[in-house]
């Protein structure tokens, strides 16, 4: 690193070699040890100290800003804070769809719960069934 490069780096990054890009630090430290290098850093360090002075922010001022943010959040519509699934609850076809789904569920449950009786198909049983039907017709109050 030449003295001119050292000066340019100091003008860009300031008087603290440890804040310069890592690749330049090793060589910069050697030049900083010389009287000329130290003078360059001292000159830039004075500007650094001025630039480091921050505007004073009182706690009360920061708190007031925080409070205003909370007030703005409180004034925001609530649905913005709800999860996306909440929108489904406001779907207009929700009640008919839920009814249909419940009916289907009950049907499936009944089909599973009722005993499955396979009617016999031999001729005697068929005849017996036919006569039972006729007997019900003749014997009924109708």
């Amino acid at each position, binding site marked *: 690193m030449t003295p001119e490069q050292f000066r*340019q780096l100091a*003008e*860009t*990054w*300031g008087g603290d070699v440890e*804040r310069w*890009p890592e690749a330049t630090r090793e060589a910069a430290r050697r030049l900083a040890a010389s009287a000329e290098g130290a003078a360059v850093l001292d000159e830039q360090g004075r*500007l*650094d100290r*001025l*630039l*480091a*002075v*921050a*505007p*004073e*922010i009182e*706690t009360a*001022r*920061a*708190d*007031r*800003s*925080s409070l*205003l*943010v*909370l007030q*703005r*959040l409180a004034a925001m519509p609530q649905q913005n*804070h709800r999860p996306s699934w909440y929108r489904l609850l406001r779907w207009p076809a929700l009640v008919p769809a839920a009814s249909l789904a419940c009916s289907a569920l009950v049907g499936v449950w009944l089909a599973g719960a009722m005993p499955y009786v396979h009617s016999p198909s031999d001729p005697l049983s068929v005849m017996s069934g036919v006569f039972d039907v006729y007997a019900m017709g003749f014997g009924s109050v109708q």
Partner: protein
Amino acid sequence: MSEVSARRQQAFRILMRRHMPRALRVAQRIVRDPAEADDIGQEAFMRVWTHAASFDPQVAKFTTWLYRIVLNLTFDRTRRRTFLPLEEAGDVPDLGPHAVERLIADEELSLLNRAMAGLSDRQRGAIALFHMEGLSGEEAAKAMDVSAKAFESLLGRARATLKANIQKIQETGSYA
């Protein structure tokens, strides 16, 4: 921050208590108007709340993310603004207990604030992040969303312009 993403207001309050002064400080350094800096700080935290889910701690630190939000808001506002009187060149901070030293320091700072008014917003942003907030060159470049090389160039130009402005003010009373 994960609790803020989960919409816990108590966590958000703690986050604001810790970081609101930082947001106001950076905004004020750039816009040089405390009232406008307050607006920017508030808007920045509204964005933190509404975009909390998009924050990824693997990609950046929270402070870097916050600086980026503040800088974007600040640059947007100053881009829209057409005129800023020189008199709005910021308050002079109280530096120390000794009156004479403070007077000298006040004069220096007054001169510096006037010279800072002649910089672009991005140059003031670079100085605020690197010198005032103490970020490294890489961190500041990340917060400004520019490459390390571009940040180096921005900071170098900012310091050179500042020095030239100070010299002009001392010689003629104005940097313009």
